[in-house]
């Protein structure tokens, strides 16, 4: 009887250990399970900027020529070892030698040309092209491992832009999107079903052999369920859990996730066309109180570009909480005939981020306390998008729009022109000085570029007070105790399995 009891205890311990630790994968290396918040809609490398696709594909199955350093936003070598600017419109990239695609084909200049032609061919929708804006690329192989990429207009950040161009095997169909990508990454696709994606380590990888031998991706919508799966050992990592589920400091890690929340002011509409009114809107909010809605680690924002992105201005101070000053500015504007009593629409988007509705209700109360007349309207994404992008609805009236912007692509050029240039898709104002500065910044390089963007951000914050930056947002991940890995600025778009280590 005692022996049976001991046997049961050992068996139970073995069972628990087997569920809590990653299993051994076929072909060596440990097998882990990653639970994602949503099902990857497809596995097309041209859609890797989408979170659900990128977190599986990027740096795992497919690799770009360059990657962005999350600490300073600079492009770093990946499949390109170095690059130089031949002239204003041409960049030359030198490619890594000895790289093979997972189907055995060689990675070379022709493969780069093939990938970029496939991306821009128009036979299917390539989401990653959104990062290139209107840039048109002409790719010319110079020799086996050298390629020239020419743009119609000068493109000083082409190496950064190419971080979203995932190189695919020349055997990939060009006329349709695919669900069986073949790249040069350290993992190859095993299966993609409605329940899982399974990646196996690619033995022919050019780089260091990763510790993880196999990764199985599953998806669950509920944050508490994802957290529970890591807790019980059913999964070893989940990249996004809600703040209320991040309760274990040993496994739950916060990270600056490259998203910035803000309220965009429609500066064309009175009374919002008066700078005093816009400053009053910024000063009327108790930002410390607001931060409690988003978690202790959230970072108060002074601009739409997060720290770590080229062009972020560290000297810009966020607006403080000064309701008396806000009321005084409003009174001054009113005395000068500005219709400050006009009802202003505060337009929110349902589910834009956790506690988004509560944040708007709190802000509405604070604005009304200093004398604004605010009318809160919550819209779904389709209706909300009409207000976000040009052409704006004619009948919109004075409005404030709840927004969240994501830029983890290394450069303020992915933010500043769309928000602050007269022709920008989200821009609600036109300022000749800012337009000139943006034109100069987009053509500048190195330190001059950084300074130019910093100057623009200072200009729109201090002089124009064009918007109401709220917070640089924080994400939470749960990482099993057996894994040594920490999230960073790029985690929303990629989870490189090769960077995951096992604790000894």
């Amino acid at each position, binding site marked *: 009887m005692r022996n049976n009891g001991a046997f049961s205890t050992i068996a139970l311990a073995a069972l628990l250990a087997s569920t809590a630790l990653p299993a051994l994968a076929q072909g060596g290396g440990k097998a882990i399970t990653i639970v994602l918040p949503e099902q990857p809609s497809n596995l097309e490398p041209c859609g890797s900027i989408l979170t659900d696709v990128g977190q599986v594909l990027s740096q795992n199955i497919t690799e770009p020529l360059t990657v962005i350093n999350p600490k300073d936003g600079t492009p770093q070598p990946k499949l390109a070892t170095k690059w130089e600017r031949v002239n204003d419109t041409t960049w030359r990239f030198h490619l890594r030698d000895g790289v093979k695609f997972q189907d055995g084909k060689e990675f070379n200049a022709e493969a780069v040309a093939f990938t970029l032609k496939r991306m821009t061919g128009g036979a299917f929708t390539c989401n990653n092209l959104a990062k290139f804006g209107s840039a048109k690329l002409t790719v010319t192989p110079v020799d086996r491992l050298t390629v020239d990429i020419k743009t119609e207009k000068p493109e000083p950040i082409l190496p950064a832009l190419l971080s979203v161009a995932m190189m695919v095997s020349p055997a990939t169909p060009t006329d349709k999107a695919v669900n069986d990508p073949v790249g040069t990454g350290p993992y190859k696709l095993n299966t993609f079903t*409605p*329940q899982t994606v399974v990646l196996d380590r690619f033995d022919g990888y050019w780089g260091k052999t990763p510790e993880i031998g196999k990764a199985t991706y599953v998806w*669950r919508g509920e944050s*508490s*369920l994802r957290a529970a799966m890591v807790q019980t050992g059913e999964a070893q990592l989940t990249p996004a859990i809600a703040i209320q589920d991040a309760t274990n400091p040993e496994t739950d890690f916060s990270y600056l996730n490259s998203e910035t929340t803000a309220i965009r002011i429609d500066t064309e509409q009175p009374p919002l066309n008066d700078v005093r009114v816009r400053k009053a809107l910024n000063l009327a909010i108790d930002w410390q109180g607001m931060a409690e809605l988003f978690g202790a680690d959230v970072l108060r924002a002074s601009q739409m570009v997060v720290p770590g992105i080229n062009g972020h201005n560290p000297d810009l101070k966020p607006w403080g909480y000064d309701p008396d000053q806000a009321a005084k500015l409003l009174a001054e504007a009113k005395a000068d005939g500005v219709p400050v009593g006009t009802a202003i629409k505060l337009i929110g988007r349902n589910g834009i981020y956790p506690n988004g509705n509560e944040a708007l209700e709190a802000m509405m109360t604070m604005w009304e306390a200093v004398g604004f007349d605010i009318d809160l309207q919550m819209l779904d*994404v*389709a209706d909300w998008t009409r207000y*976000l992008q040009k052409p704006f609805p004619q009948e919109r009236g004075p409005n404030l729009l709840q927004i969240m912007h994501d830029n983890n692509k290394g450069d303020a050029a992915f933010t500043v022109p*769309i928000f602050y240039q007269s022709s920008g898709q989200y821009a609600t104002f036109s300022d000749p000085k800012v337009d000139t500065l943006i034109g100069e910044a987009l053509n500048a390089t190195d330190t001059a570029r950084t300074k130019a963007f910093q100057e623009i951000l200072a200009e729109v914050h201090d002089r124009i007070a064009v918007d109401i930056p709220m917070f640089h947002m924080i994400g939470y991940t749960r990482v099993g105790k057996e894994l040594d890995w920490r999230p960073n600025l790029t985690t929303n778009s990629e989870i490189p399995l090769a960077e995951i280590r096992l604790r000894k």
Partner: protein
Amino acid sequence: MFGYLGKRALHSVVSVLGLLVLVFFLTRLTGDPSYLFLPLDATPQAREAFSTLHGFDQPLHIQFFNYLGDLLHLDFGESLRQNRSAMEVALEAFPQTLKLAVLAIFLAGALALVVGSLAAAKPGSLFDRFASLVSLAGASAPDFWIAIVGILVFAVSLDLLPTSGTGSAAHWIMPIGVLMLRPFGLLVQVVRGTMIGALSSPYVKTARAKGVRRQKIIFSHALRNSLLPVITVAGDLATSLVNGAVVVESVFGWPGIGKLMIDAIIQRDFAVVQSTVLVTACAIFILNIAIDLLYAVLDPRIRYQTS
């Protein structure tokens, strides 16, 4: 009988076609899918190219005629998001929901027949009160909450069951348990109510007077006569389950058609919405015909005629 079936099938085909037309126009009313499919910072040119590529730039009536033409060739379109046949996506998900729904409704029905009958045998007894309490709680408890609590108790605290997913027999226990709770609660109430009426009928009194055993009176005489309203309610509940057990599928990561349909509506993946509606509509029509036939089997007085 075959004439009746043919007539019902014809009515069903007309209804399905009407439904598809309705769904086609309703989905188009939800707006331009490019706003959800493309990144927010996509250029207007990219949106235009997307619309042209997928035919959304065509006038609505042209889109509709193209859709009808494709239907005649059994081409249900391609999922915008999944890059594959929308019908393939729907048919992959439907069996997962069907299996879950069939098991849940049969288990709930069988349990409810026993519990409801026993409760009706002695109205007002301790068992009756307990059965009523449990069934009312089951019928009214939100399944989302039950599912989460179930995961916390049975998967996290007790480590007896997997939290979610598919694969082993253990993966079925919590989804079915949660899914059958509401049908069980409602059916117990229906069985109890109809059985109380049946047990006070003259034929039951006669059977008692003739000395027939109590169990035989309850389960053989009264229960069979009480089944018609139970079948009606169970059929209605089965229809809603086949239509998609959205909450259970979402919480337990079950790859069924309910969650697929909701996701497709939210994402404006029109071809998938149309395909999932078509598949579930066909299933529901078949289910309704089966229920009609079951009536005739249970009650010899019911006969279907074509005229």
